[in-house]
């Protein structure tokens, strides 16, 4: 038999039931009937992480014969007044319409976070690719006054003092140099305890960019940041280091690797090369940060890729809500590209399997997922969620596609 328990006395306990029966209606009666204003934290979230930013090109300058910097400021015509703050090393995903096909491209921000805050602009530097249909389009049509829709700042390639040692080494190849301009500016201005030695691999002097700015930053920071350009195909009058970013070269320019954190940004082949070189340093994984490099240039290089399929074109049945349509998909093109080509305006940001923005559900069929860019969740693998930007069809597919995010 269970014990009868009274709290403050039997009658008192019954009387106190009024707290449940009467207090609530009383409080409701006493409350205001005016709607509350919008919640401040949600407003702050939209300022820090806007779904979209309406920008306008306000200045253009050539860094080299094949690299051009665009300064992007809030598009006043669209009512935009500021740039979302970012962490040096982050990127913007730009939306570009080419002949009615809407695609996205991630570009590292190369200006400093202080510029976004005070000067209210971002800068991105784009390298022109031979025969690249997008950069061709950009060179032909982007100029002052061009309107650009961008995502909020995204990505994880930033200096994180909670995690990284303050002694940093940057290794850049090709357009991988761009986030380092931002990082070096930020370290100079905002991280007085940190140092960074940057090694930029270039082919020759014509590819050097930001060299004078890096010299200025080095002076300004009292030598805490410095940059070296390393030419693999030096011209006759090249007076800097030459060759590739080998372990020996890295040690000779940046000092012994112990206790340092390495930041690497460049094209896919550079990572393969550096993986081997850095192995000699025997660094803990936490001391090597790699920026994602966008879509694969060639999926067939992976050992597990079924090369016999490389020439195939498959069919994808796409469910977009109740709509059902079919689109062709080349085996060696990412599924994201096939969806974009079909004019479906699929959502995407990093194009590297990392951000999850393009999440899609595989209903039927088989895919090959790039082992270098497989950012799927464990449960996602179990329930068919995949990232079209880093996945390739190996059969006809049936998928459930999300619509693009509506910025409103």
């Amino acid at each position: 038999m269970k014990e009868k328990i009274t709290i403050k006395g039997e009658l008192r306990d019954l009387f106190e039931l009024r707290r449940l029966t009467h207090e609530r209606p009383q409080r409701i009666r006493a409350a205001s009937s005016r709607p509350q204003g919008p919640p401040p934290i949600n407003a702050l979230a939209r300022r820090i992480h806007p779904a979209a930013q309406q920008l306008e090109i306000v200045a253009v300058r050539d860094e080299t014969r094949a690299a051009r910097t665009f300064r992007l400021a809030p598009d006043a015509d669209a009512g935009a007044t500021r740039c979302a703050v970012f962490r040096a090393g982050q990127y913007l995903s730009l939306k570009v319409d080419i002949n009615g096909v809407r695609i996205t491209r991630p570009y590292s921000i190369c200006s400093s976070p202080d510029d976004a805050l005070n000067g209210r602009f971002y800068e991105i530097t784009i390298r022109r690719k031979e025969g690249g249909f997008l950069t061709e389009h950009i060179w032909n049509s982007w100029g002052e006054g061009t309107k650009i829709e961008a995502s909020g700042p995204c990505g994880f390639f930033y200096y994180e003092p909670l995690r990284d040692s303050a002694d940093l080494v940057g290794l850049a190849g090709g357009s991988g140099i761009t986030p380092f301009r931002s990082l070096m500016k930020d370290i100079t201005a905002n991280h007085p305890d940190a140092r960074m030695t940057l090694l930029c691999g270039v082919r020759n002097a014509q590819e050097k960019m930001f060299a004078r700015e890096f010299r200025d930053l080095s002076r300004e920071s009292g030598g805490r940041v410095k940059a070296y350009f390393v030419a693999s195909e030096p011209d006759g009058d090249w007076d800097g280091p030459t060759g590739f970013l080998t372990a020996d070269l890295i040690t000779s320019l940046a000092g012994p690797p112990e206790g340092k954190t390495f930041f690497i940004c460049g094209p896919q082949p550079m990572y393969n090369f550096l993986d081997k070189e850095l192995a000699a340093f025997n660094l803990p994984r936490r001391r090597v940060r790699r920026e994602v490099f966008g879509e694969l240039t060639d999926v067939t290089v992976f050992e597990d890729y079924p090369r016999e399929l490389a020439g195939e074109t498959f069919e994808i049945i796409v469910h977009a809500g109740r709509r059902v349509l079919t689109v062709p998909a080349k085996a060696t093109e990412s599924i994201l590209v096939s969806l974009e080509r079909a004019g479906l305006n699929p959502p995407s940001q990093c194009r590297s399997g990392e951000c999850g923005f393009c999440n899609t559900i595989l209903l039927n069929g088989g895919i090959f997922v790039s082992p270098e860019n497989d950012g799927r969740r464990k449960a996602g693998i179990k329930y068919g969620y995949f990232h079209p930007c880093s996945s390739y069809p190996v059969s006809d597919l049936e998928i459930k596609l999300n619509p693009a995010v509506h910025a409103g």
Partner: protein
Amino acid sequence: MGERKEEPRFDASYDAVVVGAGNGGLGAGLALAVNGARPLVLEQHNIPGGFATSFVRGRFEFDVSLHELSDVGPDDRKGGVRKFLDDEAGLRIDWMRVPEAYRLILTGQDMNVRVPFGVREFIDCIEAEVPGSREAVTRYMNLCQDIYDTFGYLGRGGKPGPARMARDFAGFLKNASNPIKDARDLFVHAGNFLRSAPYTVAEVHDALGLPGRAEKIISPYWCYMGIPMDRLGFPIWAGMLVSYLTQGAYVPRCRSQEMTMAMESRIRELGGQIEYNTRVARILTKKGRVTGVVTADGHTIRTDHVIANASPNLVFGSMMDPAEVPTQAMKLVNARRVAASGFVVYMGLDAGPDELGITDYGYFIAEDMNTREQYDAVGALGPTKMQAATCLNRVVPDCSPPGTTILCITILHMPEAWYTVKPADYVKTKNDIAAALIKQFEEATGVAVRERIEEIEVATPVTFARYTGAFDGGIYGYEPDVWDSVPARIMHLQNERFVKGLEFAGGFALMGHGYSPSLLSGRAAALATLAQMGVKS
């Protein structure tokens, strides 16, 4: 390009539209689909789960918010959640049992104790720490058990409950099949419930004369409720404590995302439709009845039934035509207080838990256990006075690669604490708090964490608002003061259905916040909706 059938994205109308695919919305969608209705679930994010989701950094996958689910229970004694998900919906979720209730470390009280599950083990543990406490703690646990049993008794449907009896004796008589027997039953079954329901936990603890040091060991779960013991209604506390101690706690093997993806997948299999990146901007009503919803990208969808996995603050404050919002609904919103949000430090460490010396899954760490002081600290922008840390490897050993560890530290933060933070200072603000929390953990446990961090991410109320759209980033619904405790909500439920065809699910709904109440509130909202539709479930 192949043929393109120009069908619209949506059907013209649906049995019911569920707004949001968090725990509550998925619970609702699932219960609707299982019972043969065809719901449309609309979610603004790109995956299901709301707070019940995960994210990947490097070689680690972190759960966003789950510490542990209550009301799951072992296979042979299933709790409500497991009955719903396993038995009713036929899901196969790989539930992993949490080994101990918690390790409590009170640095200023020389207390470091591993508290086990099981009521007897719990009492033994407290007796070992606080000799002489057994009698008082046993009596206390008996009362808690009685409250827990009474929830079960009242939940078994159709019984004229103490709520009705207290409010409306005539109604009680009218609804009782045998008034004298029912009244007697009620006092037999619910006497202690009736006598303790109006009180706060602190009042009950005082009345029962719990030794102070025993009370410290009993109290850390307060942080799952979000308000201090001198405000928290006793029944819901007692129910939670007994639920954890008797049924244990569980997590899905592949993070909470495993559960929410399993649910969403089943909803689609059963003919329900779910659309992501699709925010509901407005709920349409006419003369106090739901008539449809409008999405942010302009689709109007007809339905007579909406289950909102969004707060009444949002629904009545910005999603409905102001002229259609009943005054009482707005007043109730304004009378309630949105509870705490959270602040979480997620870490992937590059050494295994044994090497690091992390022995337990769940840690509650504080200088002392004073829930009033701890609650007051939650309103300030700082590391606060109590942290809850989890090491997932202690439940799911292979949750991260060999030789690594997942460690997460959580504190509560009121949204207001972040109101004045400027975007330019945001990262530094959160990093300073994270650094202080890591230091707290290191000092309390003697485990060196800082030098082993391979991945780290820090979430704030802003982060939660960003991904879920939750009102002010709140993760705990409304504060469950006595007047807004679950019994009080149930008691007034009939008067607080303000719009016909509109039900609420999730942390802001009837049963309060937390994974299990949110899931089951979705189920309850679905059953209420089915009843309105005339579907027998």
